[in-house]
């Protein structure tokens, strides 16, 4: 489990940030992206993927949340 931060990029896309490793990347897909259910498996541009416990969408971004690493691309 790691603390990550999700924010909106310039083009309105989700941007993933992992403070521990100073890793910034765009999110290419998020499993659930509705106001009631948000999160699930997220895929990054670098090929890695993380899992956020599905939850109500945050009222405001950026949003820090704990996520599980499924597959880290190196």
């Amino acid at each position, binding site marked *: 489990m790691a603390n990550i*931060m999700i*924010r909106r990029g310039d083009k309105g896309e989700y941007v993933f*940030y992992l*403070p521990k490793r*100073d*890793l*910034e990347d765009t999110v290419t897909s998020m499993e659930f992206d509705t106001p009631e259910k948000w999160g699930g498996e997220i895929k990054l*541009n*670098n090929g890695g993927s993380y899992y956020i416990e599905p939850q109500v969408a945050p009222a*405001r971004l*950026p*949003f*820090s949340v704990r996520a599980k690493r499924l597959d880290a691309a190196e």
Partner: protein
Amino acid sequence: MSNLTREETEALIQEVLEVYPEKAQKDRAKHLAVNDQSIEQSKKCITSNRKSLPGVMTIRGCAYAGSKGVVWGPIKDMIHISHGPVGCGQYSRAGRRNYYIGTTGVNAFVTMNFTSDFQEKDIVFGGDKKLAKIIEEIEGLFPLHKGISVQSECPIGLIGDDIEAVSKKGAATINKPVVPVRCEGFRGVSQSLGHHIANDAIRDWVFERDGKDTINKFEPSPYDVSIIGDYNIGGDAWSSRILLEEMGLRVVAQWSGDGTLSELENTPKVKLNLLHCYRSMNYISRHMEEKYGIPYMEYNFFGPTKIEESLRKIAAFFDESIQKKCEEVIAKYRPMVDAVIEKFKPRLTGKRVMLYVGGLRPRHVIGSYEDLGMEVVGTGYEFGHGDDYDRTIKEMGNATLLYDDVTGFEFEEFVKRVKPDLIGSGIKEKYIFQKMGIPFRQMHSWDYSGPYHGYDGFAIFARDMDMTLNNPCWGKLVPPWQKPAAEGEALQKAA
């Protein structure tokens, strides 16, 4: 010399790598690349933020340098104790040219060196008592200081001193903030982690400090912005600040060149954070975006093209009155900029530059060179991360060289082959290249000149580049008796 093609550049990298043992070769190969603008992700071509290879010459600093030297050091009304042996602070004292206004030793302390000067007995018995005493002494000797930061050097982490406890106690006795920073030099692979640790210390110890709001009476306005990641090298932040102010914005804080503690404390109330050095201060900007809902915007004040672009981008965030004034500012400086370009472009056009610097300059200054008709043919970061290279690929031409944490040997070999007309790097590289007969500018300290930011800075930048490149001394490096015969005869006739 004409530019190398992609194949030639690739071959050059291979050739340079050949001298290394196999394992080192494999490691270094990942840090050297030929730029390809079509690549979206720098990760595909270059690896960064890794431990330097033992045995090669690297130019990196340590985490203490990143925290004390870069982030905390320029905050002028605080006293920054270099906690540990005397050398770390003394050998880096006042080297960075962060200009500030104030009376040194009375209400500003940037160029002074405060250290706990560890001796053997402090290592053996711990230095906590000494630190407590220093805090008291500082309060007695420099009553106008606004706070203290404790910058840990390597031994502090090794002997396990509890600087947090001492700081808390000290803060209570002197009734001013005392910030412990765990930036021991051995943390991380370069100064970059020091920036991060320093940012986190500001978050935890400055923003979260109790009672700060009762002292600071702050009247917000709709046009409040802060300048983040500008260290006022040679006055950079000042020449940036006036442009923003002319545009109608109110600059509430400068992080951290010529900055003060109350400026830091007021920043969570601004409308927009303007981020110049992304590498060293993106952490705190991200934090403020999440916690206080203040968006941040990266900008670039090097060279008129980028300045205009940035000013318009900043103005677009505010209302029409700002946008109108922004256009006026651009129009006002246009004649001055045109005159600079008219004067210097003919003298500099077509010249090729290689850069190797730190946080933002390897990509930010490209614009100012291009405005003068020059071309950057190689660039690299001492301690950049993947996101820095992501941002660099688009700025650099195709088939140019990218080198991460370049070693002394590689840099020299690249220069010998690429034969740039000018090199921009640091003091450690300066004399090597000057002795090789190549014009050189220090791009960390602006070679004791500056500012280079903003329109005023651009004029100085152009003059400095011309002064260096077209200096007559470069033609005098070969002694007459080693000159080719024809030239020698011509000389004799002349004599």
